[in-house]
């Protein structure tokens, strides 16, 4: 393929959210009949760029050209009129409606009286042409995720889109569904459709992309033409090359105390998944006293499920969970927490705080019966204890009266961490504890986790920030597709190796 002029071109797109620049002068061109992979770590700005192209988000500056002509895309409606279609990460389908109804809802040329037969014929026609065979009369809620994705793509094709943007389409797919999707890409390509394929999985990019653009921290950091890319170059580009590699070198740190008892042990722990969750497969994991165990992985590899499993939010289907030498496989959440498990969840607003309740009330939630005084709560004891915790973290003590929902993400994260760390937990399960925090707060969270380690706590640190993991961890695991695919002792890990395992591009021992 040797395209002459790009069908879609974006020039100097810039988009800021507050102080964060999600897209910084981004250029990208897409040709007819190609699969163009947009590769980058989480937060690199890929989704923002795709939403700008689809008119879902308005850029601060920059321009979009379609077939050489400048176009304005203020809302998705205009994008569709221009033949640009997008499949969102979490889909936009209505589970209760049938495949046909979901597709009909999207069509611009739908007559007032819907003729199911006509639409059904078109669905079957496109389905057979591109390998997107779905039963038009089936309710969407009965479809597998792979089939739902087919419906999303069919929707765009029937609405005459020529440029298809797919935001992390493989995130929710099983391996065989991924290869089916790539076959669909091939047949679409052959008919001249252009596909912008957003992902952070290297192996997939190598398998299907004609050209690759790599983004990091809101900028385009490089690109590869057909056949030019190789894995090592991509990994270096994605994770920031040599500077990051240097920071990944083990920092000076005493060898962790050996021979101490394990705080938490998972033995062959598995749990099934619902919907778009990740299945956990046979996890063996031990967290000792006075040890920070890091878990690296791209998002959606099973981090949330792992945290939930340890806290008891979901139960094991196979295997067992041991807490301080006692079988805790069937313990309730309350029992885990009473025994000293602190939990910093992935999404504090959803899982650790009630937005409509005051900060003070949120601080007492999850502390069990510790501050009960008769039928009331001993607010002054609570405030004293929490004040000390904030102090230990060097966080400013927040105002206690406003509702938690009024706080910024970073402030809320500080409150959750202060609460969870207030009572000398035996085990800390922290998912992305420094996400959304400024540099100083992030540093004090890391200091506190280290101090908890010196005090004999076991810490499970789940993060996407490789630098943070390298700095903190005594041991590091890599989670990929719901399985632990690599284990490194401090000083043994290499950036490339970890990056490859995280993206599943090499030697992953998963199904």
């Amino acid at each position, binding site marked *: 393929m040797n395209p002459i002029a790009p069908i879609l071109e974006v020039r100097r797109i810039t988009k800021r959210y507050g102080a964060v620049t999600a897209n910084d002068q981004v250029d990208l061109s897409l040709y007819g009949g190609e699969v163009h992979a947009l590769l980058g770590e989480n937060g690199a700005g890929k989704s923002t760029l795709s939403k700008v192209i689809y008119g879902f988000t308005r850029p601060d500056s920059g321009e979009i050209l379609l077939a050489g002509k400048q176009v304005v895309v203020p809302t*998705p*409606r205009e994008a*569709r009129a221009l033949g640009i279609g997008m499949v*969102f990460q979490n889909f*936009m*389908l*209505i*589970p*209760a*409606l049938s495949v046909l*109804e979901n597709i*009909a*809802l*999207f069509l*611009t040329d*739908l*007559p*007032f*009286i*819907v003729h199911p037969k006509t639409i059904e014929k078109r669905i079957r026609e496109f389905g057979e042409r591109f390998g997107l065979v779905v039963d038009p009369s089936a309710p969407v809620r009965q479809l597998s995720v792979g089939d739902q994705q087919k419906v999303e793509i069919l929707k765009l094709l029937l609405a005459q889109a020529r440029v298809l943007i797919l935001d992390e389409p493989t995130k929710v797919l099983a391996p065989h569904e991924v290869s089916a999707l790539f076959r669909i890409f091939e047949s679409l390509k052959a008919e001249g459709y252009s596909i912008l394929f957003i992902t952070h999985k290297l192996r997939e990019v190598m398998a299907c992309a004609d050209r690759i653009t790599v983004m990091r921290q809101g900028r385009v950091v490089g690109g590869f033409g057909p056949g030019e890319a190789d894995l090592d170059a991509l990994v270096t580009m994605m994770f920031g090359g040599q500077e990051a590699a240097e920071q990944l070198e083990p920092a000076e740190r005493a060898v962790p105390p050996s021979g101490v008892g394990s705080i938490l042990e998972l033995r062959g722990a598995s749990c099934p998944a619902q919907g778009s969750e990740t299945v956990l497969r046979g996890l063996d994991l031990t967290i000792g006293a006075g040890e920070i165990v890091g878990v690296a992985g791209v998002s959606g590899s099973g981090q949330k499920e792992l945290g939930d499993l340890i806290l008891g939010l979901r139960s094991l289907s196979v295997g067992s969970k041991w807490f301080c030498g006692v079988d805790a496989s069937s313990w309730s959440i309350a029992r885990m927490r009473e025994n000293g498990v602190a939990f910093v969840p992935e999404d504090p607003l959803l899982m650790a705080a009630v937005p409509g309740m005051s900060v003070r009330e949120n601080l007492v939630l999850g502390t069990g019966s510790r501050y009960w005084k008769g039928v009331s709560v001993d607010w002054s004891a609570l405030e004293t204890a929490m004040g000390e915790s904030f102090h230990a973290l060097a966080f400013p003590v927040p105002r206690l009266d406003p509702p938690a929902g009024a706080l910024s993400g970073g402030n809320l994260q500080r409150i959750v961490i202060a609460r969870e760390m207030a009572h000398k937990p035996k085990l800390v399960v922290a998912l992305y504890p420094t996400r959304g925090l400024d540099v100083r707060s992030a540093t004090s969270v890391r200091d506190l986790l280290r101090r908890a380690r010196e005090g004999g706590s076991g810490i499970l640190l789940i993060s996407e920030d490789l630098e943070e993991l390298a700095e903190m961890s005594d041991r590091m695991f890599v989670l990929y597709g719901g399985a632990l695919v690599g284990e490194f002792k401090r000083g043994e890990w290499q950036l490339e190796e970890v990056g490859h395992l995280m993206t599943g591009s090499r030697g992953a021992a998963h199904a």
Partner: protein
Amino acid sequence: MTTPLVLGVLAGAVLSGTSLLYATLGETIVERSGIVNLGLEGLLLIGASVGFSVTAATGNAWLGLAAAALAGGLANALFGWLVVTRMANQLASGLAMMFFGFGVSALVGAPYIGSVIVGLPKWRPAWLASLPWVESTTLFNYDLLTWVAIPAATFVWWALFRTRWGLGVRAVGESPAAAFAAGRNPAALQYQALCSGGVLAGVAGAHLSLSLTLTWAEYMTAGRGFIAIALVIFSKWHPLRAIVGALLFGGTEALQLQLQARGSEISPFLLEMAPYLLTLVVLLAWGGSRRLAAPASLGRTFYGSD
């Protein structure tokens, strides 16, 4: 049971089922768009009193019917302004609308209490009248609203399930965000659903005063609005199943009236409870499966995309 009793119950089931059916159809459209209107009782009262007053004042029951339909549509447009435009809580707004309906209907109807009107004309095809046992009863002696009740339910089904508009309404009730992403206007669709639902509720109220009782009395609906809300659940938000539900509930009411008229030994208080007991039974029986059939976004306020 004697044959006259059975025929009496059947005739009564159809007569009192008619207004239940129109009310249920209206609420079904509204709930399909994701809005719960607990003010249905008030809407029925407005329809009944406006219909009666206009008929009494003009002497034309058709004018009364049209005025009732218009009043129902307007009342629901006001409700829409509250819950769609102002994004007020639907349950609280619905209850407020109900009491508003109590007041408005009492005010409008007060001058006409005791008026004598000529209601909606009724007729019975000759071949049906000549059937044995039928002649002496009111069976098949219906007004236009009753005769077109089943076609009306079929039309509502067709509009909801076979037109572009109905697809949009149902999509909004399931997921306003997805409907919005597909290029629809959720607020406009909800207003349209509310207004057409209000018209049907107005018609339902008018049928009570212009055909069933031929009088106006305060709070004459006696909970029919709430029974209709329960019937929406009973029929699983489906207009055609609502026909069965309306007949069943109309029949329960007719049966208790017939039993009372015949001097049954069961306490009249117990008998009068029958339709409401049946409502409780339906809600209990359907309770668990409700989630499967209810519009996913029912009762939730859509605050826009993002």
